[in-house]
């Protein structure tokens, strides 16, 4: 299996953007080409787009060639778009990784993008309801916030996690986001009290426990490792990957507070990268809601099952802790443009490993990082491991 390197990245401002789907693609793509030496659009052999629902949010489909055209790219090896709801971007990275590792292509671009703001936000909420099984769960009013609220309720019930511990996740991630100009919620810090007293959305989850509706785009250039130095002096590398899926409808899940698929995906990712959870210096996990990050600490092996609340309370996921989690600000602080999120996470690791993040969030000496996405009813967990060397 050939090694795969990331040699350049581009990341748009996330938020409510006065821009359309194709504007976000152009912005992200240009930034990526500007970020790398000796590479033009015509050199891109393969092109992978991660996008969750352009069909509904933007009334566009066949979006991989649309995005390629916007960037002057004429792929002659592989082109496709991947969808895995909230993990669509990671599915695209994994496709590029597999194709390069196999020897099917040498030079690929991955673009992740989502335009989620619509003139009628009720329409956007309908779209988010079909992220669960629309016919048997969504029909009952279940979209992500009420679903994850029930996960929180069960985690509190089964493990004694507290409301305040959940709020601490937002406080930590917002601290990072507050100084990140690319973040949707740039320039704001929140206290535990502010989170707990924010507008109830799906109790116990309040507005500040939830990631936002967000517009954004991001792009990465991946190459076969031996070519990497042609494009940058400081590539980073994909070390391993894991993914698992159990069920989809609530009845098919292992549990609301036990995300077995996350544990299985993590074990496979660690195995394939030949590391253990203790080797992870920095993690970008899918904090779509505050409770998500707490359960993820547990299933990713950073702490014991049931002790995720204590983990954040003790500062183990903050700078100086056991593993620093979500230094870009997480989905909570950055916003969550579905197709772009996994790329944004990988880009944070790229910048961290290259020392290109501001000091306030720099994890000095970090060698190994993990990115994690869940999707749907937390039925699927997708993990990639990146390394500096």
């Amino acid at each position, binding site marked *: 299996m050939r090694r795969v390197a990331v040699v350049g990245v581009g990341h748009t401002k996330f938020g409510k953007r006065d821009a359309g789907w194709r504007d976000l693609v152009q912005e992200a793509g240009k930034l990526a080409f500007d970020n790398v030496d000796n590479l033009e659009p015509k050199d891109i052999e393969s092109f992978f787009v991660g996008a969750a629902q352009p069909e509904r949010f933007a009334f566009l489909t066949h979006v991989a060639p649309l995005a390629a055209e916007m960037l002057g790219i004429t792929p002659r090896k592989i082109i496709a778009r991947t969808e895995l709801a909230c993990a669509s971007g990671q599915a695209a990275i994994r496709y590029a990784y597999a194709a390069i590792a196999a020897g099917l292509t040498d030079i690929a671009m991955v673009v992740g993008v989502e335009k989620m703001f619509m003139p009628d936000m*009720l329409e956007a909420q309908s779209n988010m309801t079909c992220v669960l*099984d629309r016919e048997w769960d969504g029909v009952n*009013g279940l979209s992500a916030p009420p679903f994850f609220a029930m996960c929180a309720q*069960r985690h509190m*019930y089964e493990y004694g996690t507290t409301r305040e511990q959940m709020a601490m996740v937002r406080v930590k991630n917002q601290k990072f986001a507050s100084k990140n100009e690319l973040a949707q919620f740039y320039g704001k810090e929140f206290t535990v009290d502010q989170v707990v007293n924010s507008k*109830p959305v799906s109790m116990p989850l309040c507005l500040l426990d939830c990631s936002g509706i967000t517009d954004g785009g991001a792009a990465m250039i991946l190459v076969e490792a031996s070519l990497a130095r042609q494009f940058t002096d400081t590539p980073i590398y994909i070390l391993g990957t894991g993914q698992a899926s159990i069920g989809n409808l609530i009845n098919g899940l292992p549990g609301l507070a036990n995300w077995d698929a996350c544990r299985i995906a993590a074990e496979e990712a660690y195995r394939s990268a030949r590391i253990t959870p203790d080797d992870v210096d920095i993690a970008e996990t899918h904090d779509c809601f505050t409770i998500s990050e707490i359960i993820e600490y547990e299933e990713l092996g950073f702490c014991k099952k049931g002790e995720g609340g204590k983990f954040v309370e003790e500062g183990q996921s903050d700078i100086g802790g056991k593993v620093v989690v979500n230094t870009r600000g997480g989905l909570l602080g950055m916003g969550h443009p579905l197709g772009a999120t996994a790329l944004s996470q990988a880009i944070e690791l790229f910048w961290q490993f290259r020392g290109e993040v501001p000091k306030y969030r720099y994890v000095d000496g970090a060698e190994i990082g993990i990115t994690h996405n869940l999707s749907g009813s937390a039925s699927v967990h997708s993990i990639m491991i990146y390394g500096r060397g």
Partner: protein
Amino acid sequence: MEYRTVKIPDKINLPTMLDFYPLQTEKWTRVSRFFENLKEGKLTTTQCKACGKLHWQPRIVCPECMSDDLEWVELPKEGKLHAFVESIVVPLGMEQEMPMLVGVVDVSGLLISTKIDDAKLEDLEIGMDMELKVVRVEDGKQERYWYRFRPKK
């Protein structure tokens, strides 16, 4: 400037792509029996005759053993509340139902999601007894049926 005016519709029929309720007739689903039974007040599902697996949602192929020799069985009209939430996140067409109580009910070991009727948030607790309720869904063109649960009286 003078322009020719092109009119596009301001209102349209609720399109299928924004209609949450499943299409229920034989023409559109191979589990139409579920909806016919529901109209009779019965919550039913399929069970595999080959391996005994009880399914939720109803299937045409057993996911456990790939048999298609399934039978329809009626579920109890009662269950226990496994989780619940009051949600103000409301998609297009459910605006009138705000705030909405949503939960998961354990019926014979199946975890069935549902809207919760005839209750307030403070009435609910994990483990409480719930009972089935069948509702008629009307959109001005067709009648469909769906299930909900409410606290057992």
